[in-house]
């Protein structure tokens, strides 16, 4: 089949593709003038991303001096191509700037202040490519930052990487779009370099045949390439009839080989690779001369210019510099459109500072006579008259009018059915449409929407997976936690059975000792206030203790039988009597001890009571209220007594703590560190409370205010003792305290949640109320 195709080609017979148009070419404006070398512009604006894919990683910073050809970004994956300094100079800024994109949006650009010396970095010229391995060549191409220069900007080094069974390498020199003559001139002037580039690709891909396709409106270019390839059997220069859009990849393949690349297929599937002539030139420069892609031929044209011509533009040259060089007539005119790309597929740019990038091949500045539609702000669109001309010219054999309706209706399913993705944005349909419908524009919108939708779908899919994974994880954690709770409960039961009153006493001593050590740091803060307002502070602490102890008592009460509880009480009263003596002597030590004990209690109470408190709260509340009112009304002796009761409570608490500690043996270290925080938190609470105490203890208040507090505490001890602090702290708003309390609250909440999922709802309520 390959042979028959080649035979046909040598006879000068080609296939044809469906549709196509013959717009006025306007190539005469520039085709007869040589490519002009420009002086260096003052500043270059180099966008980091000039091709499909993502930008590379920056290698330079502001203030760096760079040499011509020096890499500015680093490629981190195959889809990323680096960019290079087009000339020597200093990086003056790296910031967002408007780029050549129809959206007029900005992208990160490197601003290079040109020093005018044009100093090259060190180059390694290569005179004999035979010495290089394919791998080395591909590396050179990749390092030179070459991306398809025909328009799409696909990284070239991926395209020329060796593939098996390539039948045809097609070199695209059709250049079918009106006005543009950049490739034409390049072929005329640099035919040998282009052929050298083609040879390099030949070495990499080893295709059966190489076809260079040139439209028959470029006789000089055809001649030049025929001469340059005369000695090479494998290369055939194919002169194809002029028609728009011959240069489209699929269209050109069909013309040359008769093979129709069907929807969704890539040319490579048919054993065909296509490269643009300018890309071949760039490959030659890169491999032989170690010159990265830093300049390109740009056609600056249009009847609004005095001197339209092709120029060698450094990448990053702002278009206003190019326009100056070609003497634009009235650039001041606000309405003067400047179009990047050709008249069929280009878009008008929003700023004169838009830089030339690797894919820009044309700057078109039309006069009003030439392109009246470009000057009109309002679209002259009218209803589609169903003339069918659009589908006659569509090279992709689509149904443009149908597409247009579906695009307006945002019917993505229908668009897919109509193969919108095969539309090459050629603009032939819009060109012929008598109703002046900007058809391509609607397709572009629709395509962007579809792309967006696909991204959203992908994201939704990902979110779904993550959500499911999380659910699974939570489920697992819950089971693990339940297991742990079961074990802990069993351990606690065993410990409970052992805990006789005597043992409790002994153990409480140990617990107290432990607690004392921990409290040492905390106590310093408290020592300030022990003597003068001793009564008050002890009372306050007692308040808290009584709340805490109430919770413990409740928890106890439920767990143990009433009879058992009774014996405990009698025991504790004994204890109280004994402790009175000790306490009256050691008031000071007790005071220092109180926060510690309190501390410990708060923690234990939190752990134990969280589970049980709520159920039992009603019963306990009554008794607690009584107790507390007693406390508050009581005089010094009563205060001392409660201190002793606290001691006894400490014992009870310690007993529970022991049971707990067994179960939580592993978590001990953690708990310890937590203790410290707690002490800090309690410091806050103690000081805060003492500040507020006077109001709390004013006789009218005491009866009501305190019970309220207790009720709150019962709901979720751990977090709430802190929440209380928070609310108190608010009444005496010291910033430091506030913050501490907040932090404490936050930590406690997190802790509580972890320990007891069931309590969380209650907690949240509390949090809300706070």
């Amino acid at each position: 089949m390959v042979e028959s195709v080649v035979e046909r080609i040598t006879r000068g017979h080609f296939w044809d593709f469906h549709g196509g148009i013959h717009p006025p070419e306007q190539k005469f404006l520039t085709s007869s003038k040589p490519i002009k070398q420009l002086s260096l512009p003052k500043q270059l604006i180099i966008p980091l991303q000039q091709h499909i894919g993502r930008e590379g990683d920056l290698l330079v910073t502001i203030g760096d001096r760079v040499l011509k050809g020096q890499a500015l970004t680093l490629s981190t994956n195959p889809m990323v191509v680096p960019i290079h300094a087009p000339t020597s100079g200093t990086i003056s800024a790296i910031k967002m700037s408007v780029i050549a994109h129809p959206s007029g949006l900005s992208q990160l650009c490197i601003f290079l202040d040109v020093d005018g010396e044009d100093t090259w970095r060190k180059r390694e010229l290569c005179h004999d490519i035979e010495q290089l391995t394919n791998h080395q060549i591909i590396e050179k191409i990749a390092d030179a930052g070459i991306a398809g220069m025909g328009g799409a900007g696909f990284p070239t080094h991926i395209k020329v990487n060796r593939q098996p069974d390539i039948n045809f390498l097609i070199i695209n020199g059709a250049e079918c779009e009106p006005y543009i003559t950049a490739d034409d001139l390049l072929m005329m002037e640099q035919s040998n370099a282009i052929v050298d580039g083609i040879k390099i690709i030949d070495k990499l891909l080893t295709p059966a045949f190489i076809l260079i396709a040139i439209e028959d409106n470029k006789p000089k270019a055809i001649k030049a390439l025929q001469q340059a390839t005369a000695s090479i059997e494998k290369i055939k220069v194919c002169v194809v009839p002029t028609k728009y859009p011959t240069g489209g990849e699929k269209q050109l393949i069909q013309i040359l080989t008769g093979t129709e690349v069907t929807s969704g297929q890539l040319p490579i599937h048919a054993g065909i690779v296509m490269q643009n002539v300018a890309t071949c030139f760039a490959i030659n420069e890169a491999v032989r001369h170690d010159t990265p892609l830093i300049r390109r031929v740009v056609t600056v044209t249009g009847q609004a210019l005095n001197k339209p011509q092709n120029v060698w533009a450094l990448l990053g040259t702002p278009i206003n510099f190019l326009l100056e060089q070609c003497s634009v007539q009235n650039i001041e005119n606000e309405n003067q459109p400047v179009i990047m790309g050709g008249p069929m597929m280009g878009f008008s740019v929003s700023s004169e500072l838009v830089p030339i990038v690797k894919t820009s091949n044309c700057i078109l500045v039309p006069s009003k006579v030439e392109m009246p539609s470009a000057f009109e702000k309002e679209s002259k669109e009218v209803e589609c008259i169903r003339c069918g001309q659009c589908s006659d010219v569509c090279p992709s054999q689509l149904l443009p009018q149908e597409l247009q309706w579906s695009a307006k209706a945002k019917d993505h399913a229908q668009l897919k059915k109509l193969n919108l993705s095969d539309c090459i944005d050629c603009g032939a349909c819009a060109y012929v449409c008598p109703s002046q419908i900007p058809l391509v524009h609607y397709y572009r919108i629709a395509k962007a929407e579809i792309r967006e939708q696909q991204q959203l779908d992908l994201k939704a899919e990902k979110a779904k997976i993550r959500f499911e994974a999380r659910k699974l994880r939570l489920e697992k954690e819950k089971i693990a936690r339940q297991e742990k709770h079961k074990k802990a409960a069993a351990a606690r039961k065993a410990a409970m059975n052992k805990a006789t009153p005597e043992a409790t006493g002994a153990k409480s001593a140990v617990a107290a000792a432990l607690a004392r050590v921990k409290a040492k740091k905390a106590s310093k803060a408290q020592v300030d206030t022990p003597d003068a307002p001793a009564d008050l502070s002890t009372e306050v602490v007692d308040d808290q203790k009584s709340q805490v102890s109430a919770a413990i008592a409740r928890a106890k009460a439920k767990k143990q039988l009433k009879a058992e509880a009774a014996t405990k009480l009698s025991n504790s009263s004994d204890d109280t009597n004994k402790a009175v003596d000790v306490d009256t002597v050691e008031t000071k030590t007790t005071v220092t001890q109180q926060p510690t004990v309190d501390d410990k209690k708060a923690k234990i109470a939190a752990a134990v009571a969280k589970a049980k408190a709520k159920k039992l709260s009603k019963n306990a509340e009554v008794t607690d209220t009584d107790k507390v009112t007693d406390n508050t009304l009581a005089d010094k002796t009563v205060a001392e007594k409660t201190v002793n009761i606290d001691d006894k409570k400490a014992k009870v608490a310690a007993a529970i703590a022991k049971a707990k500690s067994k179960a939580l043996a592993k978590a001990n270290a953690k708990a310890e560190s937590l203790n410290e925080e707690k002490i800090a938190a309690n410091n806050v609470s103690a000081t805060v409370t003492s500040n507020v105490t006077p109001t709390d203890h004013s006789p009218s208040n005491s009866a009501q205010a305190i019970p309220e507090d207790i009720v709150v505490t019962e709901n979720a001890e751990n977090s709430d003792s802190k929440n209380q602090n928070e609310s108190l702290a608010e009444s005496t708003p010291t910033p430091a305290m506030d913050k501490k309390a907040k932090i404490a609250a936050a930590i406690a909440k997190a802790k509580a949640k972890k320990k007891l999922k069931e309590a969380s709802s209650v907690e949240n309520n509390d949090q809300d109320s706070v």
Partner: protein
Amino acid sequence: MNILLAILVLGSIAAIFGALLGFASVRFKVDADPIVEQLDALLPQTQCGQCGYPGCKPYAQAVADGEAINKCAPGGEDTIKKIADLMGVEVQPLDESHVKGDVAQSNRPKVAFVIEEDCIGCTKCIQACPVDAIIGAAKQMHTIIIDECTGCDLCVAPCPVDCIEMRELPETIHNWQWDLTSIPVKQLD
């Protein structure tokens, strides 16, 4: 006799065809996606819980069981229409009582953002996030993985220091929408 024969013949024909049809229906059974999966695929997977269910899948299950189809605020009218199509019921307007905050009001997608200097590392937001899009550890600064955030708003409320806010994603050339009328013409100085 003739009648009997006729009945017999017709009866046996009926039996044969019946058996044939029965066999075909078993043999060539089309495995349709379970309705819940189909519904779930239509929902936006924001997992925000505005519908009153703890995620999109549970809501899909509920709809399959007869729950109202108009409770998903992030999905909006589009999703309701699709669900109505699938379930063969009437399209209903969005149930406003299920719109929480302004999540559904802006058409630009939003993601959560942690004001990092204020974060106290309480981990509450992590527990709230339905898609594990927050990284951080206890007492460490937390941050949001923008690419994974569904913009569900659930982490904002639990933060004790109010350091999470919802921000619109900036417009870049990657997510820019072609717009016929509003190409901004910016003149640089």
